[in-house]
């Protein structure tokens, strides 16, 4: 016979609405990162529910696997694809949203009313007996006796998934990589011999040698090709002229 204590009821009525509101917010927010954070919160709530329901092992696994590994993987891919690639919330298929919401109301209403009407025919049992020797021990006993075959199949599934991800991530070159010899020939047969010996290093030596300052040519002008094209495009480039002798403060301060 299962009796639910008041603390669990308080926890439930506090966290369950929060979980549902966060899940709805997940659909409404524009940015994918915010969706991911709301989903992480829903998963933490579910972990608390698991622990409250005597599923200690699953609660910890939920936090470690879902909020830890899976959500970090999601955020990692989001960063890779571009955080500001925000979802356009305009519907592309006409009438999709009203239909989806109507169908969801119908489906949700059906589920809720079914759960409300269904009866198990007996009292809820609770897990006190099943967990008497510890939740993890009892789960391990089941996993390695009754469910040992599904367990092995799942391990095969994990290996297959890892292999599949490797195959998908494998990137075949369309053009063979240029050898050192080919690179040298291309340098000398290029548009000008000026770059044959390599490009000038950035920085005004003895004054400032940072990568964002163009080097000075013998005639005193700045050498634009001594700076990385990326820095130039970003506008993160300093003027060499500010490091000229006349500009620099030459007064020697005596160290005490």
């Amino acid at each position, binding site marked *: 016979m299962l009796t639910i204590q008041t603390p669990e009821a308080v926890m439930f009525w506090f966290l369950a609405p929060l979980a549902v509101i966060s899940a709805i917010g997940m659909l409404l927010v524009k940015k994918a990162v915010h969706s991911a954070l709301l989903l992480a919160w829903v998963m933490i709530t579910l972990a608390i529910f698991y622990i409250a*329901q005597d599923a200690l092992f699953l609660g910890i696994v939920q936090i470690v696997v879902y909020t830890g590994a899976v959500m970090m993987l999601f955020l990692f891919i989001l960063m890779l694809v571009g955080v500001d690639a925000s979802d356009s919330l305009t519907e592309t298929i006409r009438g999709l949203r009203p239909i*989806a919401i109507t169908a969801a109301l119908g489906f949700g209403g059906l589920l809720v009313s079914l759960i409300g009407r269904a009866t198990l025919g007996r009292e809820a049992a*609770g897990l006190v007996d099943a967990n008497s020797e510890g939740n993890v021990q009892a789960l391990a006993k089941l996993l390695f006796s009754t469910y040992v075959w599904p367990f092995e199949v799942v391990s095969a599934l994990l290996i297959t998934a890892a292999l599949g991800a490797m195959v998908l991530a494998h990137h075949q070159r369309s053009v063979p990589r240029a050898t050192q010899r080919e690179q040298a020939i291309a340098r000398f047969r290029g548009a000008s011999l000026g770059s044959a010996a390599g490009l000038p290093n950035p920085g005004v030596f003895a004054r400032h040698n940072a990568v964002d300052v163009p080097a000075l040519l013998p005639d005193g002008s700045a050498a634009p090709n001594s700076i990385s094209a990326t820095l130039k495009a970003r506008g993160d480039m300093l003027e060499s002229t500010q490091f000229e002798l006349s500009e620099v403060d030459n007064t020697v301060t005596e160290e005490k």
Partner: protein
Amino acid sequence: MNPYNYLYVSALLFTIGAVGVVVRRNAIVVFMCVELMLNAANLTLVTFSRINGTLDGQVVAFFTMVVAACEVVVGLAIIVTIYRSRRSASVDDASLLKR
């Protein structure tokens, strides 16, 4: 309060996830909604395990988590591959077979 209340939460979360899969256009958000549906199913399994007084539901929920982890790995790899070739993570852009 009785443990059946957890089932209502789970039904609501599952429905919200289903709406998200249909309504959202960003493939990653669609994928997160699938995860939400899987989690809702897990909550059902754990609750029924408690109601029935056996741990079988928890073992099945454990298997669901493993399958979900596999699914995330392969699914995100597919999304990255599509993004690499089409520069977009929107599910509406991957409609080459239509024309």
